[in-house]
């Protein structure tokens, strides 16, 4: 674990416990949310900012109870709007560290409009999107990430909605940090949270999260130990895409199309494989599209990280620029206006 740094006056080392609240956690037993909460609480003490500068914001849904369990400043807002609240908080006070917890319904359905605009503006907010491909809190209706044909309470004959691919949506919206991870791989989840925290700008993390009540096992091929190696390819910057128990398989590009190849039959070697470049947005789109080919493993990790000006910093810069040109605003001069007259 990285060195624990704190700058609060007492210079007390923060621990996991400092981020836990006295509130009973009210998620269903066995829910993937527990792991996400635990991993976030575990890495929080590593970060250099003060605890009082942390703000956790959410909308509505199971995932959105998250702030109640984080012993930071927290705002449990209304359905889908967390990114808008977060933007207001960041503009009002850019030094605050703002985390948003959202779900596939909250973030991509009712709040779809807000998440895309948060991402395009590059406000430094870290978004944890808990994707369980179902509506949990309203008890089992299909969500915008539910699969075609999925039978749910509101789709007894199967869903006819084409689902969103959250990673593709984020890339399309112009996000500067896009990653995918899962509740059942604590180490990977922690690492992605660390990287997201270090990113300057909006960080979008899709987290595969098991809803053991309404959509149990939706991600088991990717998350369970015995199948994960064959079905997941971990993206590592500047490293070839390898997967399989013994890393015996890889991904190569055939034109613009990724394909899975074996390194064991002598046809391909490691040098033929696609090498990940997390700064390449074109590649990020190609990797995001792998989800549409069932013969390919599911990429996990950072799809894209790019550098762009921070929205909240630009707000501050513009104010500073205008002040340096016009000087600090004088209220009486504003009231007086450009043209006035005096009646004796």
């Amino acid at each position, binding site marked *: 674990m990285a060195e624990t740094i704190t700058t609060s*006056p007492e210079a007390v080392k923060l621990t996991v416990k400092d981020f836990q609240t006295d*509130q009973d956690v009210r998620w269903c037993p066995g829910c993937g949310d527990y792991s996400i909460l635990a991993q976030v609480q575990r890495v929080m003490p590593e970060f250099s900012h*003060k*605890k*009082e*500068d*942390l*703000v*956790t*914001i959410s909308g*509505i849904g199971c995932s959105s109870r998250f*702030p*109640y369990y*984080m*012993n*930071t*400043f*927290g*705002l*449990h*807002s*209304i359905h889908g*709007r967390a*990114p*808008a*609240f*977060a*933007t*207001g*908080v960041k*503009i*009002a*006070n850019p*030094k*605050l560290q703002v985390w948003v917890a959202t779900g596939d319904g909250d973030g991509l359905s009712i709040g779809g*409009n*807000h998440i*895309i*605009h948060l991402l395009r503006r590059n406000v430094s907010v870290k978004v944890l999107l808990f994707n369980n491909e179902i509506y949990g809190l309203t008890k089992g209706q299909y969500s915008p990430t539910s699969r075609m044909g999925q039978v749910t309470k509101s789709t007894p004959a199967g869903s006819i909605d084409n689902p969103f691919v959250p990673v593709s949506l984020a890339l399309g919206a112009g996000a500067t940090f896009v990653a995918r991870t899962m509740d059942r791989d604590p180490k990977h989840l922690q690492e992605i949270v660390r990287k997201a925290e270090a990113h300057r700008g909006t960080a979008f993390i899709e987290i595969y999260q098991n809803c053991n009540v309404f959509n149990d096992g939706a991600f088991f091929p990717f998350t369970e130990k015995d199948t994960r190696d064959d079905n997941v390819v971990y993206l590592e910057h500047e490293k070839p895409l390898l997967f399989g128990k013994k890393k015996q398989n890889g991904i190569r590009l055939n034109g613009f199309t990724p394909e899975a190849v074996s390194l064991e039959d002598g046809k391909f070697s490691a040098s033929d494989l696609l090498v990940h470049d997390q700064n390449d947005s074109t590649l990020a789109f190609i990797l995001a599209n792998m989800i549409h080919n069932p013969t390919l493993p599911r990429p996990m990790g950072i799809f894209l990280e790019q550098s762009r000006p921070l929205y909240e910093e630009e*707000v501050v810069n*513009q*104010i500073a620029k*205008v*002040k340096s040109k*016009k*000087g*600090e*605003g004088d*209220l*009486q001069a*504003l*009231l*007086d*206006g450009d*043209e*006035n*007259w*005096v*009646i*004796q």
Partner: protein
Amino acid sequence: MAKSLQTLDEVTIRFVGDSGDGMQLTGTQFTNTAALVGNDLSTLPDFPAEIRAPAGTTYGVSGFQIHFGSQDILTPGDTCDVLVAMNPAALITNIKLLKSGGIIIANTDAFTEKNLRMAGYSANPLEDDSLSGYNLQKVGITKLTANALVDMNLSTKVIDKCKNFFALGLMYWMYNRPLDQSIRFIEAKFGKREPQLAEANLRVLKAGYNYGDTTEIFTTRYEVKPAKLPPGKYRNIMGNTATAIGLVAAAKKAELPLFLGTYPITPASDILHELSRLKNYDVKTFQAEDEIAAVCSAIGASYAGNLAVTTTSGPGMALKTEAIGLAVMLELPLVIVDVQRGGPSTGLPTKTEQADLLQAVHGRNSEAPLCVVAAATPADCFDAAYEASRLAIKFMTPVICLTDGYLANGAEPWKIPTVEELKEIPVSFAKDPEGFHPYSRDEKTLARPWAIPGTPGLEHRIGGIEKENITGNISYDPDNHDLMVRLRAEKIERIAADIPLQTVHGPEEGDVLVLGWGGTFGSIRSAVNRAQASGLAVAHAHLRYVNPFPRNLGEILYKYKKVLIPEINTGQLLKLIRAKYLVPAVGYDAVKGLPLRAEDIEQRIQDMIGGKNG
């Protein structure tokens, strides 16, 4: 030929033309000059929602009415003395507003066969005797403009764009106004960047003025002396500008940054435009992706310790409803400015209305009380916005500030306050973790502490789920919910102890009390003044505070035999007053997208009393 000079107490001029004819600019210029020569005034811009409707059509007509005088001017005028009509469509749609015997300045060049047909005239009204009841002045404004620019090698399009300044110059001559304010305006607008346009506009303005001076058509010019306003420094101000600087003033007095989260909507957008230019006053404007994000970002900014505002109009209010309910639950300061327009739905975007009152007071799910204040005149938008901010901070509550399309775009002279005169707005953020509870309350106001992120030891969670009293923890306890519902209501009621008593203009008891709120102030005051002058025992009370009502309002209502409530809706304040005070008040309404006519209100008062001498 010698021209006679006649002194008038007041005049109403209405400039009307195509949407592209620059009538709003012409009217605004005439207004600014009238203000600077010291007249009292009131304006009514009256334009369509379409940006540039096809030329010559009746639905493309844009108008600007200014009522100015040497006495107290309260309304833009029910009717006008002068109608400047730039084309037949403008004439046919506005002639009904011209007083009998009033002056028509008609641009003869635009009265072509095609334009006459588009306006619906079967014959040219300038050539038959259909306008014989008026003082018709035919001026070839387009040709005279072209003549003034003949050596400048300008396109017909550019020349055409200058003709409104000919009309302006002519009106300046007719009402003995100086040109210098408009000259400064032209130089500032075009001066350096487009010197040729500056030259063209200046020439045309002067040509219009000189035309009045030299032509034999005009034999009389008029003088309107400065108004006897109370001593002080004045400026001319429009409602939206007043709202914007009222918010800035409140933020400065509170020593907080101002945050505006908003989404463009007519007729509120000018508040955003105004505030976005004031960055050196620590103003942050955020044009959000939609109305919902606009209000949510403002709540976020308030949570983080800024004076947070969202501005909108009726349809935007509807979209913000859920978030405003959250602000009620979070008990955070938030100012919501609703510049009301005609509705429902998209309604009449550029026209005025007062029909969002019940939406403001009651329009949220469940019991969600908040404070509602309303502006009475364009300049009063400053005070309303300032007071809304003060109350929001003091009582930790959302406050809705109601203005309307007429106030937003209307203008009047404003006696400028000094910074020192403005009420103090003290802010105290919670600092001490010892015994801190997010939902503990101030004994007097019931306000909860404003505990902003970044304060060590005050980490806490708030949200839309019902709070346990004091701790703010989630609570589904039935008795706690009942208690919290009542506490939230009681807090808003206690605002009544903080606001001034209601005042009355006129006798303290009598036959009729005319009770109003918002932008109808001028029309009602005008009507009441006339009724009083005719000897009637009539008084006017105008509400700044619509929720809660001033604590003496009930007492006032019972002192008059009858209560009349004029509104630009079908009786919304009427419902609130009847429900709360059980008085048999009656309403007067006209929901036309226009200010109420003073004459109509006066008639209603007369009818209630039963004839002039009651």
